[in-house]
């Protein structure tokens, strides 16, 4: 029997950890059902269904959606739809590109010896350790200087002028995602025995076929976890996006921040709740897929 099992210290620690991990989330979900528009204190659930919204001061008395009033409110909000679309577009595009670059650099760093290798390896950690705000400001400075110079030199005007937008956000996301993908894939490659590739070549496969049929399928789980990590980082990112976005490229975190600056209605909570559910479902699905794969393999 584990002697620590009933230790009061372990129980207290566990309770505290779970409390601080999940209490904010539970609170957030609860407040998305708040009858109070001001959303400062929880005033109970919206009690009734009706044809149209009935308000009593800042309290919602009844709504066509009943307790789910703020979710319906959210669905009617076109800005949210656009922000969600932008977020996913950026996340998917950046993840695909960053995964390709990151995987290639991981293989290069693992496989070959070259003069700048120690420098390349070290440079991977820089985007991870430097404060995100520094990267954000750096990216902003780079883009504005570069775009200013290009616009001036080529005398661009109107729509042709380069400006901050989806492209700059995507590029910046790729830049901070690549090191994460590289490090995750590299970890997977560390245990990769070179003799698998030698065996493939021995059996008549050239370099490209060897990569396609043997190396890639074997490191795929590592590539997938790298991609998933990069994807979630992109979905969450606020700081870098804040500095590099422009008109028409508002992402969800930026949108939520904008809402908070005006008035915090439970709509924000409803949005966050949906967001959590989406991410949670995605992670769960991935877990199921991975479990099924590893069961097949063992």
């Amino acid at each position, binding site marked *: 029997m584990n002697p620590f099992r009933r230790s009061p210290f372990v129980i207290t620690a566990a309770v505290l950890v779970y409390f601080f991990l999940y209490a904010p989330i539970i609170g957030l979900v609860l407040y998305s059902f708040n009858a109070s528009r001001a959303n400062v204190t929880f005033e109970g659930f919206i009690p009734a269904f009706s044809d149209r919204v009935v308000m009593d001061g800042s309290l919602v008395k009844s709504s066509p959606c009943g307790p789910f009033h703020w979710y319906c409110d959210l669905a009617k909000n076109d800005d949210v739809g656009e922000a969600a679309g932008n977020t996913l577009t950026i996340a998917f595009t950046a993840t695909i590109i960053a995964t390709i670059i990151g995987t290639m650099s991981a293989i290069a760093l693992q496989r070959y010896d070259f003069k700048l290798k120690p420098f390349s390896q070290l440079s991977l950690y820089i985007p991870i350790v430097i404060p995100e705000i520094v990267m954000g400001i750096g990216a902003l400075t780079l883009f504005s200087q570069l775009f200013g110079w290009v616009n001036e030199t080529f005398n661009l005007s109107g729509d042709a002028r380069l400006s901050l937008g989806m492209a700059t956000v995507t590029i910046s996301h790729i830049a901070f995602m690549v090191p994460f993908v590289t490090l995750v894939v590299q970890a997977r490659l560390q245990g990769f*025995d070179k*003799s*698998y590739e*030698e*065996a*493939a*070549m*021995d*059996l*008549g*496969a*050239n370099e490209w*076929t060897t990569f396609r*049929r*043997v190396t890639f*399928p*074997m490191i795929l789980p590592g590539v997938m976890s790298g991609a998933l990590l990069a994807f979630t980082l992109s979905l969450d990112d606020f700081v870098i996006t804040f500095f590099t976005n422009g008109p028409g490229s508002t992402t969800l975190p930026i949108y939520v921040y904008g809402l908070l600056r005006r008035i915090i209605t439970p709509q924000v909570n409803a949005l966050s709740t949906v967001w959590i559910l989406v991410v949670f479902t995605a992670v769960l699905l991935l877990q199921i897929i991975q479990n099924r794969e590893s069961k*097949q*393999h*063992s």
Partner: protein
Amino acid sequence: MSSEFAVEMRDVVKRFITPEGNEMAAVDHVTMQIKNGEFFSMLGSSGCGKTTSLRMVAGFEWPTEGEVYIEGVAMGHTPPFQRKVNTVFQSYALFQHLTVYQNLAFGLEMEGAKEDEIKKRVGHALEMVQLTGMDRRRPKQLSGGQQQRVALARALIKTPDVLLLDEPLGALDLKLRKEMQLELKALQQQLGITFIYVTHDQEEALTMSDRIAVMSKGKVQQMGTPVEVYERPANKFVADFIGESNFLEGKIKSLSKNEASVFVPSLNAEVVGMPISEGLVKGEEVVVSIRPEKIRITEKDAKNNNLFHAKVTNTVYIGADTHVYVDVNNAKVKVLEQNRISRLDPKSFYVVGQDVWLMLMPENTLVLKKD
């Protein structure tokens, strides 16, 4: 087949740069000629260059100097996928993400074989290694011995001219290893293809090989049949590495074609033996090598030059044999006595402190170079 030799290595050198930045020759001017249909072993301890030599034949490494020929054709920088040799890896290197069937089919797909032909040949290969019915399993669902057979079948299905085996039995337990040794030998004879077998296990090499190359420090120390390398080792290293031997250091006093007389200081006497190593000269510091099973313990009556008084210091009874350790003057010598007669009486065995006489027959007493 166009050439007399399946594989030929001509004066091959392979140098590596060590992590400290020094140059090291893993293979140092190796020349070998491996005949068609031969079971050829490269034997040596780790770091002797045997695996590097094999990898140069497979095409995973390229020689720094010299040339590797397969069926008489110089290989140069020919990549592995264009050589008609196949390898059984020490780690098996079975593709974990593929089934047994897919592992075997891989090499045939690379040749562009049609599906029904692949099916037929995979079935045949599985039958050959007695794994029929296992085709849908993944490598991890097989035992070590079964994985070993899949690796063998995967390489043989390509019908190579030469099969390269890199310590293929190293991961198996002793009993299975002995079974597989005989099975591999039988398979090689049945298929008639050339096997080049890398091992550090001298017994394995002696059991299976037609010829053995004993390697050390990147050089071939001796090449010959199992009998030759055991009975006529070219130097002290080979005598020491293959089997067991007593070594007595000395200096050649007189030398003829068939006889060498060596003064051994630890015996304070001259020993007469056969000059074995090439290029021995009078006055040279040499070693005298005598296998423990070839020394006779005898009465002091024989008129023999090589008869020495000894004292028993220890005896170890191990069933089939008894190991008798004796001191001859200042030299320690081990003698292996076969227990040919069943007996229990302790007095019938040699006892510690007993005075005995050792007879070293000149034909069993080999005079070898020190290195």
